[in-house]
């Protein structure tokens, strides 16, 4: 997953500085991808170096380093466009779950331990799903309220689009969580059978 | 085929519904077995009587009112070709101190056994005067044995005799009148009868019957009838034919009911086995095989039902043996032999075929639907229901065509044909109208009925109305059956009420007398000997007698036609307030009493057949020469409705026939006088004369009995019909309840209490019946009214037509039918467990 393209995408809207970028990123993808300032600035520097982004402005602040405002360049736009239309890779994503590792060393005469782990993991995922769903609900609600309060069509479209993006992302997380839960239930059944 | 198993499992699992569905077929086949058995028994009884009376005879000479002079027997024996001539003289009487009417069978003991059958079990055959034979039944009932001395009482006093032997009443003469008969010598019979005359001479020929008949005609007087023994039963045969047709119609109705039940069940079954059908189809089973599977299931149900029906029918026949089966009487007024009610075995295979075939036909449509099902069909049923209603145009056309055809049938058939054939056309008329109107009616009802029912009965009403009008497929066939059944019930009861009403009218107008003195004869209605003048004079002087009206009652043969002549002293008759029951013509007796212009009123069935109307002239050869009698009107006769009778004034008769004889004396008593006492006195005083004193109440009873044998069968059929309708409606309601278990469960889950569920089922049954009534009552009124005029013309008996209280009674019965039929299904619906119902697939 490319941080580079994420930042480019965010910069197409308008010039932003690092703080804005972090905030926007969190808004849209914060639930599934944790990004810190360090990663952002490192990527920005690389983007400037490659000519895809340029420094737009600097605002001085007291007691703080200057706020650098970045802007996307035309080659940056090209790069983004190119990336957007590229077909996705079709390999399934690799699964790296600590649980698999534990399973390798399962002691079959005491399966209760691993079953307990499975159960706990299940609760975690379930609770996670509840949280994600709640979030979806809230987003949808606030989007609806925002639309009611504005009469500007462009604004409306923007809110709608953001809402859609957030929901798609959250749905992705939910579906994956559901898949994991199903796998857990399935494994639990297999292990019980073995005993 | 392997997948037949699925059918069996399904039937077994839903065994209640299976049982209910074959109920109709069972009942239909039972009726199919039982009814022809009755009919066949009555016919064989009629023919047995024939055989018993006529025996080996090829020709029978039958007397008219006046009897045959015994001297003529010799002349008959002289005729070439006559091998045997055997006389017979009958009478009616009683054993002393006993109430039961007996037939006195007077024979020539020397020769009678050569023609008729007598099975002697005890004692000896009679040798001559003073000896009698009794059938076993009579002997046992009255506790009489061989050697006992009996006192016999005829119309003309009593006579003593000794019992010489007992007859086995399994065959022959002893079977007549149910075994209530006494065989005696001619001389004894003459005494009891009061006259030396014969009723018939039975003749055995060498072979050339026709020539012998011609020869006999030259020897015998004109008044007697020379014919075949089978001629006796003409009228009876006709009535039996008519009865047969009526019964067949009921049979068909019941079978159709059975078909409807099978149809309902198969439809539900198909619906429930949708998935199964889908699976089979996906495994490669063809549509035709699916269709055949269901048709065979229907056939299997039919076969089982038919088999059960036959068994049940046989049981019913044997169980009914003790019930008296009264066949209609024959023209000679001789009581019939009663045959043992027996199963008509020839009918059994037909009954079985009928039941099975009906089921196969009934199962065809659901089978076809099953074969057309796509593997995935969810709520498409609603669509099918709506298609069912909406194909109105097609149906309207079909309906109108049927109406037109049946109208043509109704109005073009000659009136003298079986009126039941016309009635069949009327059924088609009604059904045709119903089919044509069905679609629009249902749509209209579907809009009006639910809100109205909701307003009146709340949620149960809404549910009931909605089910009825929006899911018509299941109920429409039931509705049709109900409609036809109700119509038939109306018709049957209308006929009955007609008879009763006519009786009442006769009682009020003609039969206002207390006693009738009549010359001795074979029955209440046929005097042979006239009343001596002394009796007339004496009767008139009795203080208890308020009035005595004279009447001459005789026959007259004119060429081929035989008339009855009834000459009444109209002065006295009218003075006492008696009246004839007029049909055509002005009720004016003055024309009749004008002796210068001889007039008559006519009555009888042949009035219509021979086309005699008011204004016509009947030419009669009398001792005064040829006289033209003007017909001034037609009246209804109760005494001999099938015989052409000329009713005239006594004065006219005496003037034309120069005959002062009097056969009947109609007596009205003073209010305080006791009929029984006067009768006893008269019997004592007139014992020496050959007269009978009859209580008019007895006369009425005898008259009623004549009709009752027919109407009782009709009533039995109506009762049976009601039972069948209840059964059919109950089955349908059960099937409906099972069909909608899921919906009912859902309604209960939503908060409908049990009582509301019960109400909705009952309301639905009431609505169904109500709709059927809506069609049936106008139809029934129309046909009964139509029949009234028709039958009146045919038979000359006045029908009362439709009466308000009879329609009301039908409605009450219908209401009761609906309530009774819906009771158990409603209770079942109410008792349902909600969760079970919701899981129901």
């Amino acid at each position, binding site marked *: 997953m490319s941080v580079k393209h994420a930042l480019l995408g965010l910069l197409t809207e308008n010039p932003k500085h690092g703080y804005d970028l972090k905030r926007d990123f969190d808004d849209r993808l914060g639930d599934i991808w944790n990004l810190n300032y360090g990663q952002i600035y490192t990527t920005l520097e690389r983007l400037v170096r490659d000519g895809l982004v340029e420094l737009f402005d600097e605002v001085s602040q007291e007691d703080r380093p200057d706020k650098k405002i970045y802007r996307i360049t035309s080659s940056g736009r090209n790069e983004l466009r190119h990336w957007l239309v590229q077909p996705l890779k079709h390999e399934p994503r690799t699964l790296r779950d600590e649980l698999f590792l534990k399973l390798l060393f399962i002691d079959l005469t005491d399966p209760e331990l691993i079953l307990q782990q499975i*159960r706990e993991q299940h*609760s975690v995922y*379930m*609770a996670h*799903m*509840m*949280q*994600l*769903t*709640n979030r979806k*609900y809230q987003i*949808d609600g606030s989007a609806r309220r925002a639309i009611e309060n504005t009469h500007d069509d462009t604004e409306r479209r923007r809110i709608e689009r953001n809402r859609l993006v957030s929901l798609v992302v959250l749905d992705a997380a*939910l*579906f994956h*969580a*559901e898949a994991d*839960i*199903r796998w857990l239930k399935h494994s639990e059944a297999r292990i019980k059978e073995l005993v | 085929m392997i997948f037949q198993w699925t059918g069996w499992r399904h039937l077994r699992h839903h065994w209640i519904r299976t049982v209910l569905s074959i109920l109709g077929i069972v009942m239909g086949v039972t009726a199919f077995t039982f009814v022809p058995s009755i009919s066949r028994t009555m016919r064989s009884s009629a023919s047995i009587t024939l055989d018993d009376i006529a025996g080996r005879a090829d020709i029978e000479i039958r007397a008219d009112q006046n009897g045959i002079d015994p001297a003529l027997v010799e002349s008959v024996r002289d005729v070439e070709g006559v091998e045997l001539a055997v006389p017979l003289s009958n009478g009616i009487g009683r054993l002393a101190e006993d109430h039961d009417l007996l037939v006195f069978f007077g024979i020539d003991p020397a020769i009678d056994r050569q023609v008729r059958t007598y099975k002697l079990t005890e004692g000896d055959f009679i040798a001559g005067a003073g000896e009698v034979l009794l059938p076993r039944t009579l002997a046992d009932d009255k506790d009489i044995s061989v050697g006992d001395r009996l006192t016999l009482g005829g119309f003309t006093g009593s006579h003593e005799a000794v019992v010489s032997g007992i007859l086995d009443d399994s065959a022959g003469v002893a079977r007549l009148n149910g075994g209530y008969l006494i065989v005696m010598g001619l001389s004894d019979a003459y005494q009891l009868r009061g006259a030396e005359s014969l009723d018939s001479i039975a003749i055995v020929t060498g072979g050339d019957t026709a020539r012998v008949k011609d020869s006999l005609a030259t020897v015998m007087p004109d008044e007697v009838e020379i014919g075949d023994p089978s001629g006796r039963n003409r009228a009876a045969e006709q009535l039996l034919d008519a009865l047969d047709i009526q019964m067949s119609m009921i049979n068909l109705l019941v079978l159709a009911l059975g078909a409807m039940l099978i149809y309902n069940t198969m439809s539900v079954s198909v619906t429930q086995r949708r998935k199964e059908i889908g699976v089979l189809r996906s495994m490669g089973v063809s549509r035709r095989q699916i269709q055949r599977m269901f048709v065979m299931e229907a056939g299997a149900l039919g076969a089982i039902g038919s088999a059960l029906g036959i068994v049940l029918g046989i049981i019913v026949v044997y169980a009914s043996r003790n019930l008296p089966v009264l066949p209609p009487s024959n023209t000679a007024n001789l009581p019939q032999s009663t045959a043992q009610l027996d199963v008509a075995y020839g009918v059994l295979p037909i009954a079985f075929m009928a039941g099975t075939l009906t089921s196969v036909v009934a199962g065809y449509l659901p089978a076809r639907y099953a074969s057309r099902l796509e593997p995935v069909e*969810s*709520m*498409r*049923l*609603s*669509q099918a*229901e709506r298609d069912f209603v909406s194909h109105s145009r097609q149906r309207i056309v079909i309906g109108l065509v049927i109406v037109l055809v049946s109208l043509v049938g109704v109005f073009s058939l000659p009136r003298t044909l079986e009126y039941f054939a016309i009635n069949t056309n009327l059924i088609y008329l009604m059904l045709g109208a119903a089919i044509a109107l069905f679609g629009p009616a249902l749509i209209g009802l579907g809009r009006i009925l639910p*809100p109205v029912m*909701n*307003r009146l009965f*709340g*949620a149960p009403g*809404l549910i009931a109305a*909605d*089910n009825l009008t*929006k*899911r018509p497929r299941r109920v429409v066939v039931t509705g049709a059956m109900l409609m036809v059944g109700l119509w038939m019930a109306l018709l049957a009861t209308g006929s009955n009420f007609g008879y009763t009403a006519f009786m009442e009218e006769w009682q009020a107008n003609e039969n206002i007398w207390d006693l009738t003195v009549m010359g001795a004869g074979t029955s209440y209605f046929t005097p042979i000997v006239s009343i001596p003048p002394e009796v007339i004079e004496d009767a008139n002087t009795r203080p208890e007698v308020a009035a005595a009206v004279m009447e001459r009652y005789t026959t007259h043969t004119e060429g081929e036609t035989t008339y009855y002549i009834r000459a009444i002293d109209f002065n006295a008759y009218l003075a006492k307030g008696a009246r004839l029951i007029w049909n055509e013509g002005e009720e004016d007796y003055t024309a009749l009493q004008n002796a210068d212009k001889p007039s008559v009123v006519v009555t009888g069935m042949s009035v219509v057949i021979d086309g005699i109307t008011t204004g016509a002239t009947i030419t009669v050869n009398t001792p005064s020469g040829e006289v033209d009698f003007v017909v001034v009107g037609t009246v209804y006769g109760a005494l001999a409705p099938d015989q052409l009778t000329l009713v005239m004034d006594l004065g006219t008769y005496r003037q034309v026939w120069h005959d002062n004889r009097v056969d009947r004396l109609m007596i009205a008593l003073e209010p305080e006088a006791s009929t029984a006492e006067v009768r006893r006195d008269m019997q004592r005083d007139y014992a020496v004369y050959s007269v009978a004193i009859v209580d008019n109440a007895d006369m009425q009873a005898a008259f009623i009995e004549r009709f009752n044998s027919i109407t009782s069968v009709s009533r039995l059929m109506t009762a049976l019909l009601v039972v069948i309708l209840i059964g059919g409606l109950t089955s349908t309601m059960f099937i409906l309840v099972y069909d909608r278990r*899921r*919906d009912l469960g*859902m*309604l*209960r*889950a*939503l*908060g*409908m*209490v*049990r*009582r*509301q569920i019960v109400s909705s089922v009952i309301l639905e049954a009431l609505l169904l019946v109500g709709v059927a009534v809506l069609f049936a009552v106008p139809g029934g009124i129309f046909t009964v009214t139509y029949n009234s005029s028709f039958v009146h013309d045919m038979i000359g008996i006045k029908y009362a037509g439709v009466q308000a209280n009879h329609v009301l009674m039908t409605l009450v019965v219908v209401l009761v039918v609906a309530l009774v039929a819906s009771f158990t299904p409603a209770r079942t619906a109410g008792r349902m467990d*909600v*969760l079970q119902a*919701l899981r129901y697939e």
Partner: protein
Amino acid sequence: MTVQLHNVSHEYNYGKVQALRGINLDIRAGQFVAIMGASGSGKSTLLHLIAGLTQPRDGDVIVLGHHLGKLSDNDLTLFRRRNIGLIFQAFNLLPTMTALENVMLPLIIDGKSKREIRARGEHLLRLVQLTDRMDHRPDELSGGQQQRVAIARALMNEAPVLLADEPTGNLDSKSGEDILYLLRELVERENRTMVMVTHDPRAAAYADRIITLSDGQISEELGIVAEVMVS
């Protein structure tokens, strides 16, 4: 406390199957509770008990202060009529009635005339976004639309307690989601109490509280209370 189950046990098939064993459960007003568990774990039975459709072998079921075990069959039915809204997995609409008539059914059963309640019925159908299908019969509606009619029907009597048995079981993923969203909205907006039986984790995730049944007992309970997870 809106729903209380004290030590409730239930069985069927004459004791051969223990559906529930000694269940204790309290549900407050305004809670959205999901009940999960493998098939045969007794989820639906729990729902039936709360609805008064069946009585427990042991224990007490108290809903809105009514002790259901003490009510006669008639009183139970009336109680259900006025206090419970039921949503089934198979939609169980009457096929002969339009969507609107189906929605109005609970109050028609209660003796109200169509005139009185029509407006409310139409309002509810608007709520589930079926305004243009009011006069359609069930067989003219898609699965999702039928389920929405069923939901509108469950709301007709303004029941404080809504019970749903696998409401999204027969629906595709998107339709199901719309339904769940609607249910959640109802609970939050009108402070109804919702108990939903489901085996679908994504559906259960819409609840505030997830109770998992296993072998007739509560094996797990998850809940969100003010964004804080409680396990």
